């Protein structure tokens, strides 16, 4: 029986006790998935999984707090679930986690770049073990899956859900921690080059806040300081400095909490490489506090606690 059938059976057996189960279905065309809220058994027919099911569905969980729901998670999404639990933003008893053993998801950005022209409406997509066959307007293109995997999947250390009530699929052997070439390359640049890079990239930002809304750890919603008038942290001026300031707000509020699911970068309509900032911050957190958000239960976010003697911070100051 396939992984999808296993998942459907598992959901079917628990659906009665749950308000709904969050999964994925086909979106406006076969290439794009969209979240699916399964309330009845009939909805189950539309459920899909696989490399096109990119969304981190843990984002919806805090909004359902107090209701009993189920959620389908990949390895990376399960880290967000753990972090939400650690911060008491959801209750363990209210959430049924259907964990997947994931082989990686695609990056729509890379698919777009790999196709000769903007595909527009895609007629059909065949997902093979190694490749992706995309048909547009009577023509078809075959892309190698390994070429269009999302960046996070290239260095994924947790392909299997690390928290789950039901784990579906064959477990992977965890890969050793690695770093991304594009990240290392950017970090090696000079301050002036980095500044010029952000000035250029941030001038594209339209401040749609898609990065914030897609983020599973951004739970302030209507109370976000970026959109408050008093105090006015960020003005309405759409300049690179104000746009960058919003990213600084996002990153500093996620310091020690970000699980690197990459939703901010995926959601960005103008392709700003936001994960450069997040990954760098996580690296610093790991360096100083020796922990990674979402990898263990019962872990306090590092900035909500302290030690009288910090081993890795210069005690004397400057």
């Amino acid at each position, binding site marked *: 029986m396939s992984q999808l059938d296993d998942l459907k059976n598992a959901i079917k057996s628990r659906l009665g006790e749950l308000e709904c189960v969050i999964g994925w279905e086909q979106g406006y065309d076969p290439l794009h998935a969209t979240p699916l809220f399964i309330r009845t058994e009939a909805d189950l027919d539309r459920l899909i999984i696989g490399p096109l099911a990119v969304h981190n569905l843990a984002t919806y969980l805090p909004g359902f707090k107090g209701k009993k729901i189920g959620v389908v998670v990949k390895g990376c999404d399960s880290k967000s679930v753990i972090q939400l639990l650690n911060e008491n933003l959801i209750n363990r008893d209210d959430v049924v986690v259907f964990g997947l053993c994931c082989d990686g998801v695609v990056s729509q950005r890379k698919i777009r770049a790999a196709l000769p022209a903007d595909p527009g409406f895609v007629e059909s997509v065949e997902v093979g073990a190694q490749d992706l066959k995309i048909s547009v307007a009577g023509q078809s293109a075959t892309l190698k899956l390994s070429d269009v995997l999302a960046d996070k999947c290239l260095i994924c250390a947790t392909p299997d859900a690390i928290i789950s009530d039901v784990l579906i699929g064959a477990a992977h052997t965890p890969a050793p921690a690695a770093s991304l070439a594009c990240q290392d390359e*950017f*970090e090696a640049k000079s*301050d*002036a*080059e*980095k*500044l*010029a*890079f*952000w*000035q250029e990239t941030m*001038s594209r930002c339209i401040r749609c806040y898609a990065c914030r809304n897609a983020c599973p750890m951004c739970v302030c919603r209507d109370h976000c300081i970026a959109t408050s008038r008093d105090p006015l*942290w960020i003005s309405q001026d759409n*300049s*690179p*400095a104000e746009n*960058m*300031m919003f990213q*600084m*707000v996002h*990153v*500093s509020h996620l*310091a*020690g909490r970000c699980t690197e699911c990459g939703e901010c970068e995926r959601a960005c309509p103008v392709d700003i490489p936001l994960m*450069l*900032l997040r990954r*760098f*911050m996580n690296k*610093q*957190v790991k*360096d*100083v*506090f020796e922990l990674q958000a979402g990898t263990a239960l019962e872990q306090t976010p*590092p*900035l909500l606690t*302290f*030690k*009288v003697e*910090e081993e890795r*911070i210069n*005690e*004397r*100051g*400057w």
Partner: protein
Amino acid sequence: MPAQDVRELRIVGFLCNWCSYGGADTAGVSRFTQPTDLRVIRVPCSGRIDPLFIVRSLMNGADGVLVSGCHPRDCHYAEGNFYARRRLEMLKRFLPITGIDARRFEYTWVSASEGQRWQHVVTEFTRRIHELGPAPTFNPASEADWNTLAVQAGQGQTCPCHG
């Protein structure tokens, strides 16, 4: 570094009420010579300082930001500076990726009796900022660009860009 000799730079200082602000006062009362580039903002505790205060200052054109609080274990509120230390350390380590020179931000501890240490901290930090020079602005448009725009806007429909 007397103010007359060189152009003053804008350095923002966040000082905790109980130690560093007192320390700065001690330095003043003792008539220790200090550079005058620092603008002091008094906060109740270094734990009151949101790292975003520092980011906002740097983004808004400060050439340097200095944060100073009570020595660890001497906090008036017992543990404020322990939290501050973690936050400020993370900010300092994070700044390089944004292209802002991390040397423009520093945090340290000065107690109310350490007038001499305060003098040293201010002098050293101001010297460092002067070596770095004025901070590059995050908004790439220069004053010249704005002047050109103003001239073009003033020409209305006769501006060559409409042709």
